[in-house]
């Protein structure tokens, strides 16, 4: 009983109950509930910043699929974070157009001013700095994305 209550609390930290219910309702009426896996992982991530193991379990339980089926999807995508990240993820483009216009210098500068290397999070847990491939903003190179904003 006590464990059940704790579990529920942890789950609502991952995603508000209304959203869990709405995913459950959707999964119940569509023919292929797996198609909601990415949506649900993204919903958890936008609420909780990243997807811990419990997030994988919550996704599996909500959609009525196997945890391994969720995990093999979650680990494929580079924009689903299976490890803790800061509240703001900064993605710096290192693909060709940005590279040709000095992306390496921008990355250097960001690393220096944040005091972290690529792949790391600032000590206050605010920023994570990650490299990314082309963001589709090649005309405005060098490009970066903070959260979901290019």
């Amino acid at each position, binding site marked *: 009983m006590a464990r059940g209550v704790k579990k529920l609390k942890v789950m609502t930290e991952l995603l508000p109950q209304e959203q869990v219910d709405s995913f459950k309702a959707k999964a119940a009426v569509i023919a292929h509930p797996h198609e909601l896996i990415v949506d649900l992982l993204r919903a958890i991530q936008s609420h909780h910043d990243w997807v811990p193991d419990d997030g994988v379990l919550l996704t599996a339980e909500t959609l009525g699929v196997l945890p391994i089926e969720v995990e093999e999807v979650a680990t494929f995508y580079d924009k689903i974070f299976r490890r803790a990240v800061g509240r703001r993820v900064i993605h710096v483009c290192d693909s*060709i157009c940005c590279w040709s216009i000095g992306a390496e210098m921008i990355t250097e500068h960001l690393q220096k001013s944040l005091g972290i290397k690529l792949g790391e999070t600032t000590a206050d847990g605010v920023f994570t700095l990650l490299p990314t491939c082309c963001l589709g903003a090649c005309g405005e190179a060098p490009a970066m994305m903070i959260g979901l904003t290019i």
Partner: protein
Amino acid sequence: MNAYPQVLFKNRRPGETVLLPEYEKSGGYQGLRKALKMSPGEVCALVKDSGLRGRGGAGFPTGIKWSFFPSSQPGDKYLVCNGDEMEPGTYKDRQLLLADPHQLLEGMAIAAYALQAPVGYIFLRYAYEDCSLRVERAVKEAIAAGYLGKNILGSGFDVELHVHRSAGRYILGEETSLLNGLEGGRPNPRSKPPFPAQRGLFGRPTNVNNVETLATVPHILAHGKVWFHNLALNPESAGTKLFGLSGHLNKPECFELPLGVTLREVVDEFGGGVRGGKKFKACLPGGASTPYLAAEHLDLMMDFDPLEEVDSRLGTAGVTVFDEDTCMVAVTRNLNQFFARESCGWCTPCRDGLATISWLLDRIEFGRGTEDDLTMLKDQVRNIKGRSFCALAEGAMGPVEALLRLFEDEIKDHIRKGCCPFKQ
């Protein structure tokens, strides 16, 4: 400034998105009205006769692809719009969706009718949240106006569109990987055959087209095949194309230009010439997987067949220009790092081969390369080509092969000098 006819970009204004009333005023949804008065087969035939070729990179004739689709087969059939757009140097679909997204929806409604595939998915990459929001708003407007949803324009035909937001990885742009992504499976590619038209989404017949391809269809319906054909400067070709310029140019912007415009005109007139008054050295003509063009190619027509004749490809027409001071070994190294990182790891030639090429290019670029490395580089290319499970690794070989063909001297210079000659 751009005196060429504007079709996809005719309503485009910086920082604004066209809403339904303005789209209608500019002739929007007239193509759909016309299509619904024709038979599905007639619509397919018109698109085939128009000469439209796929804008997603491969340039496959759209009408021919549609003619393979088993539209009369009973049961679920799907239409998918590929908006993954993750090939470096490619940003045209985003510009189109930000400017005037109803064109895509109208094109999808027409395609759904022509293929008798009433359920469609619009697959958009993670970074394109701005596009997703605008497309969703447009879908709502179109449903309210009766262009999408049940019984569109009183025709008795239903069209249901869903937006899928992805979560990264270039390989999702490969159509079978994309279908696995939509289904919520692990998105490695599938073997072909069976092709998506036979067994696609959820095992059902599925047609996949690029954003720009679908957005072009309404204009063909509205104005006809002769008009479309005459848009191109190349008499063998048809239509306009979005060119996304980037790299060492004064004006790295996105332009709608006729197919057949010369590379020189693209670079000098539209790109504003090479930055800092420097000379043009090379470019990627259509994204990271297309073999380089060099100065000797400046007077070529930017179009599918003319570029294939010089062992390159138009690809997505994302033109990335490099000036005379650029080291092409370093460029190729950056491109190959992208492909190696984005390899899905399914097959050995790609997973291990691209990593080996990265290692060899590192050695050469940083002055540790030998003649044996050059031999091994050529060997790797030979062994990867034609042996990978999907076209990602094949595409990755584009720039490496072109480096060997056009700039072998530059590689040898690195080896001889024991350093990058451009960093001296």
